């Protein structure tokens, strides 16, 4: 049984260990700084923290001694000179029937947020950013390069390096309010390297959807078949899907789970097609996070919230829902979780499962751990800072 959790919070990195049967968090670094994501590279043992210092910008921080000490990584994530993207801005427009209009402009890319990190064999480290970048290292993090195949994908206007204005250019990628700049720019929040072949990888973007490469990032294709955009006039569009998170079953890598803005999806063919599998009648539909079991592709966990209008725990009570049959049915588990006066929100990186142990943290600083596949829960912390990420180490 895994016994260690890495927690990214608005005020630092925490490590949670089981001490005599009780889960205890301790501050492990970056005190006072925003930590969007913390994870352990399973191939090297190195810990990586993705920092979002409001004033001082986004930084990669590493620890090679299990979190005892941290240092800025020697190679930081930076967009190369000349990289541009199509940004969208809403502005007041008295001539519009609605009083506002969207405009598209060409913008120089700079890192607004480091959002997620993923790992592959042979020194592969991948970092997802806002605005919509995937940075890849093939030397264990000694250097990173922007994946130009994805950056220059036709769906976002193609190669914009020679463009001087946005006129005539179009992007099918939309934004997320999760950036730290206030800009509504696309965010790459999910990275899943295929354990059978590291050149095959899925990423997911808010708001574009799931995207696959089979050639190590040279070329990419949307993998959104079967998903529906309930809130747009073109519900089966290739692009523009608001995937909140995807998680793959390591033991059955063709099984991929997705929490989407519009519900829960399951794929049994490595994201080539998706089936909507939530149970809205049981309040199992909306949420941000999803965790796949690492052995059984049919098993996944979610922590549902009340619709996108509220984005909070349902009726003041927290529950975790689990499916054991590929989403045909869901069981709701409440034992050990607060059943009144709870208004927690669980963000997309704040739920994780490993070896049947499940943990999640909320923006109200509560952290819960289950060692029996989500059936019963123990409190690991009630007074943590707002929690952004929870990962078993």
């Amino acid at each position, binding site marked *: 049984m895994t016994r260690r959790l890495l927690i990214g919070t608005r005020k630092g990195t925490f490590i949670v260990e089981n001490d005599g049967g009780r889960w205890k968090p301790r501050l492990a670094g970056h005190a006072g700084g925003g930590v969007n994501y913390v994870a352990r590279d399973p191939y090297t043992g190195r810990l990586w923290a993705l920092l979002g*210092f*409001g*004033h*001082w*910008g986004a*930084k990669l921080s590493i620890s090679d001694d299990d979190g005892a000490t941290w240092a*800025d990584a020697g190679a*930081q994530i*930076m*967009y190369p*000179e000349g990289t541009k993207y199509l940004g969208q801005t809403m502005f007041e427009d008295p001539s519009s029937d609605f009083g506002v209009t969207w405009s598209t402009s060409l913008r*120089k890319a*700079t*890192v607004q947020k480091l959002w997620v990190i993923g790992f592959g064999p042979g020194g592969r480290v991948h970092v997802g950013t806002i605005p919509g970048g995937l940075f890849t290292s093939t030397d264990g993090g000694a250097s990173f390069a922007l994946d130009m195949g994805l950056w220059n994908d036709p769906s976002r206007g193609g190669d914009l390096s020679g463009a001087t204005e946005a006129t005539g250019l179009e992007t099918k990628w939309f934004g997320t309010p999760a950036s730290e*700049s206030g800009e509504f720019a696309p965010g790459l929040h999910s990275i899943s390297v295929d354990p059978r072949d590291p050149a095959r990888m899925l990423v997911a973007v808010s708001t574009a959807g799931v995207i696959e490469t089979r050639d190590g990032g040279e070329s990419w294709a949307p993998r959104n078949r079967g998903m529906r955009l309930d809130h747009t006039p073109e519900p089966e569009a290739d692009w523009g899907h608001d995937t909140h998170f995807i998680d793959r079953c390591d033991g059955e890598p063709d099984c991929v789970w997705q929490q989407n803005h519009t519900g829960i999806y399951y794929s049994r063919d490595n994201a080539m097609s998706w089936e909507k599998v939530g149970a809205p009648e049981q309040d199992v539909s909306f949420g941000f996070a999803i965790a796949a079991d690492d052995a059984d592709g049919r098993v996944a966990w979610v922590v549902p919230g009340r619709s996108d209008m509220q984005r909070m725990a349902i009726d003041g009570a927290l529950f975790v829902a689990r499916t054991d049959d590929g989403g045909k049915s869901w069981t709701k588990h409440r034992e050990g979780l607060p059943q009144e006066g709870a208004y927690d929100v669980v963000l997309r990186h704040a739920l994780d499962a490993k070896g049947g142990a499940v943990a999640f943290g909320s923006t109200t600083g509560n952290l819960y751990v289950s060692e029996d596949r989500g059936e019963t829960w123990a409190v690991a912390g009630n007074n943590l800072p707002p929690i952004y990420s929870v990962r078993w180490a």
Partner: protein
Amino acid sequence: MVSIALTRHLFQFFPQLADREVAVEAATVAEAVRALDDLAPGIAFYICDERGRLRPHVNIFVGKEAVRDRMRLSDPVAPGDTLSILQALSGG
């Protein structure tokens, strides 16, 4: 030499700059930031983004005047000047 006075917030990341006089040779603010980065590698990326632009909630003063060129930091500095590098107080 141009003296540089840093917000103490930066000392948590660059303790080697705390409790000492920091002075560099520079003719512009950009040169001063580059020289500071030689003393404390990485600090320029805290003060500026990867395009060399001053980060939105960071400011640099030459004497009592805020820099005018936040994009390239081309404002001139002269021997005896003091640069103050500080951040907005915000958040909770």
